[in-house]
């Protein structure tokens, strides 16, 4: 093994945190010019491993060989100098400064008076951007870029360090398909220059598309490595989960009842125009479309987060005047927001408070004081019901994995006993096992007669779960289709890209 030409060898890496053994002796071998995927459910240890590699953590034990030498006790800036760069899951650019200052932050070229040489910085930035075929003026402010572009700038920065190994932790979670393809082109280009890339993603189709080799981890242990072209999806999932996930989308037919929610000509001054649809009891209505097509804004407007500029919302046939989330909650609506960190969890607060916050009045006695026991019992009941893995109700939510954070949020909303649930990207960034659990739960809720509106950018998910699908394009509904057996992704995409229009036909049906 060791005769092989590896740029990176991590051997028997152990990493413990107080009370948690995150890595229990795992290996990773990466060759130069290879795109190497790390796979595993949330909490499997991928992120911890790459953090050990990038110098963010020091491993408790184990050896790291990089570029022919054993490397010990280094920090992130030393890692960068060695040639290991990491593109983080959550970017942290200096937003109100230009691209070039972001690239050369902390190592700005100086002129002979010791002042920053902006001209030289500009030239150098242009050269680096050209290397990855990115056409953007280095003087543009970071704040003016899309998330995708910011990510490309991070890659440019990695290139500027002349990195031999670039780690990308879920770089595509916020990108559109087109942007993902751009990213892949850049990755392939870097590969052809002999650079190695470690790629972490939950999207299996991407892994097949772009990677050469896969290493799978589970519960902090090394499970195995395979060449990507010699492994099947089933095998991959099996290695990750340790069991077969038989039904990815366990849609069961359930009786569909009365119209519960009806939206007529809903408009927002900036985001969308003339959106009309209805959801019945027991129905799952999927919302498809490209990122930026206005899906999220539609449901956030119904929920009272944004102010509508026109149109009506009817609940049970009665016009509902909703101007704040409180109004929506009072009408038995619930919203699982798209961005868990931004508008979902309270990171440093305990699981308990995260669960009850939409529901505190239910736990008050006649003096307005909280009934501790009832609160605790209810939380425990919901922890069981949605299967949250947490050592205690007092655990800070930020210490749970992404999937478990999402389950805590699901519990928060189920506690309000909603009749209409809006789920915005309910499984984004969540591992396969948890994903299936959430799908099962959603189907069960529909079976109980709840109306569900689910926004998802993953077409297989929308097609697997929904009874009907609303497709949006640039702020307008371009199609509402019955989820037939012969419905194809291509058909949905033709609505999503605005090349077909089929609202009228089906609405009048």
């Amino acid at each position, binding site marked *: 093994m060791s005769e092989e030409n590896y740029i990176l060898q991590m051997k028997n890496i152990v990493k413990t*945190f*107080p*009370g*948690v053994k995150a890595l229990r002796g795992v290996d990773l071998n990466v060759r130069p010019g290879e795109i190497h995927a790390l796979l595993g459910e949330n*909490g499997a240890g991928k992120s911890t491993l790459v953090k050990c590699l990038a110098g963010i953590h020091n491993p408790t034990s184990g050896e790291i060989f990089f570029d022919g030498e054993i490397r010990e006790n280094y920090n992130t800036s030393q890692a960068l100098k060695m040639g290991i760069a990491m593109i983080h899951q959550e970017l942290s650019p200096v937003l109100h400064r230009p691209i070039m200052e972001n690239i050369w932050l902390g190592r700005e070229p100086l002129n002979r008076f010791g002042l920053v040489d902006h001209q030289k910085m500009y030239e150098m930035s242009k050269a680096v951007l050209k290397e990855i075929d990115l056409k953007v003026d280095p003087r543009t402010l970071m704040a003016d870029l899309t998330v995708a572009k910011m990510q490309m700038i991070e890659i440019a920065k990695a290139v500027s360090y002349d990195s031999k190994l670039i780690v990308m932790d879920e770089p595509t979670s916020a990108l559109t398909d087109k942007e993902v393809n751009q990213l892949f082109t850049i990755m392939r280009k870097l590969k052809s220059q002999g650079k190695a890339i470690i790629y972490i993603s939950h999207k299996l189709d991407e892994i097949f598309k772009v990677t050469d080799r896969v290493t799978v981890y589970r*519960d902090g242990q090394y499970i195995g490595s395979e060449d990507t072209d010699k492994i099947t999806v089933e095998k991959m999932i099996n290695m990750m989960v340790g069991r077969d996930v038989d039904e990815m989308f366990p849609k069961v037919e359930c009786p569909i009842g009365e119209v519960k929610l009806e939206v007529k000509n809903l408009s927002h001054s900036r985001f969308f125009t003339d959106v009309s649809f209805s959801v019945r009891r027991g129905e799952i209505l999927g919302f498809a479309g490209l990122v930026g097509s206005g899906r999220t804004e539609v449901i956030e407007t119904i*929920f009272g*987060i944004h102010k509508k500029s026109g149109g009506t919302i009817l609940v049970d046939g009665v016009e509902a005047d909703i101007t*704040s*989330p*409180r109004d*929506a*909650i009072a009408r038995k609506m619930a*919203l699982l*927001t798209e961005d868990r960190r*931004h*508008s*979902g*969890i*309270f*990171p*440093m*607060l305990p*699981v308990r*408070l995260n669960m*009850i*916050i*939409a529901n*505190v*009045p239910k736990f*008050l006695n006649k003096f*307005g*004081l*909280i009934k501790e026991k009832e609160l*605790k019992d209810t*939380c*425990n009941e919901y*922890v*069981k019901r949605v*299967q*949250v*893995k*947490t*050592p*205690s*109700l*007092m655990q800070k939510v930020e*210490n*749970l994995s992404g999937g478990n954070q999402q389950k805590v949020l699901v519990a*928060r909303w189920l506690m309000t006993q909603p009749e209409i649930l809006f789920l915005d990207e309910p499984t984004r960034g969540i591992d396969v096992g948890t994903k299936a659990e959430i799908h099962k739960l959603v189907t069960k809720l529909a079976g109980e007669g709840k109306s569900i509106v689910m926004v998802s950018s993953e077409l297989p998910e929308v097609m697997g779960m929904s009874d009907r699908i609303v497709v949006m394009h640039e702020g307008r509904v371009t199609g509402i289709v019955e989820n037939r057996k012969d419905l194809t992704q291509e058909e949905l995409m033709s609505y999503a890209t605005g090349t077909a229009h089929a609202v009228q036909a089906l609405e009048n049906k």
Partner: protein
Amino acid sequence: MSNTGASEKQSIDVKHILQKYGIVFVLILMIIGLSIAEPAFLSQSNIFNVLTQSSIFGIMALGLTFVIISKGIDLSVGSVLAFAGVVAASLGQAATATGKYFPQLGEMPVIVPILAALAIGALCGGVSGFLIAKTRIPAFIATLGMMTVARGLALIYTSGKPVSTLIPSLTLLGGKVFNVIPIPVIIYFIMIVISSVLLNKTRFGKNIYAIGGNITAAEVSGVNVSKNLIGIYAYSGLLAGLAAVVFAGRVGSVHPGAATGYELTAIAATTIGGTSHSGGIGTIWGAFVGAMVLAVMRNGLTLLGVDAYWQQVTEGVIIVVAVIIDMRKNAKKN
């Protein structure tokens, strides 16, 4: 992190306890050290002395705990104390006072100045809260404005002169029950209990943590953020008004320049007690311990005969060190 279920018990871990209650150990060490160096420190009268000295800024620190947990700040409490204090004192003057404010009203029952102080305090705080909630200007700016306005109003109201010769029932509030237990300390302890219940046992309390923890998520979860913000600052102002009553009782007069800089002492006490300025974290118990650390230090340094100027230097160092310890506690996981 991986066992299912949610048992409430936590493993006993000495390091964990030391980190969690670090500042309590600091306080205990200070008390032990001082009582060895100066046995008079532990006398009953001195202990009550320390508690009394801490009661005014201690009461304000309770309100600031609410404010800081919600990721805000209230710079106005010192000035609000002065404004509420001069108005309360003017309503609580004895008939013998020279230049009495309301001669035609005679001597009023003590409840009048008390309610006036509480009302003015809550109103000033409420206005700050309203501005923060409705215009979303930073709390620092809103309360900086209120700090200046309230001080100005106190000066206008009094033409810059102290208000003195108060009725005995008001100065009694600065006295002692059975000649032993100081009334300011009793008021302080009652407010600790009330604040603690409010913060831990009510919907208001849960909402405060949620707003400080993630204001967007709080809004989406149906928390009425505006109403709660107004409530938070009104409570902080109310406690400043109560502190004004205690101040009037203890000093026997209120000067429009009174309590200058008290807001910073109160903020320091809250911060030393582990309430995080990044929001969502903090306890009433911590605010009490923080106030004690400051009061014990001041009292101890005086007993030891340390120069008053050096006391200030020491105080500054302690505040910063306490926050460094506290940040380490919160940052240990990364």
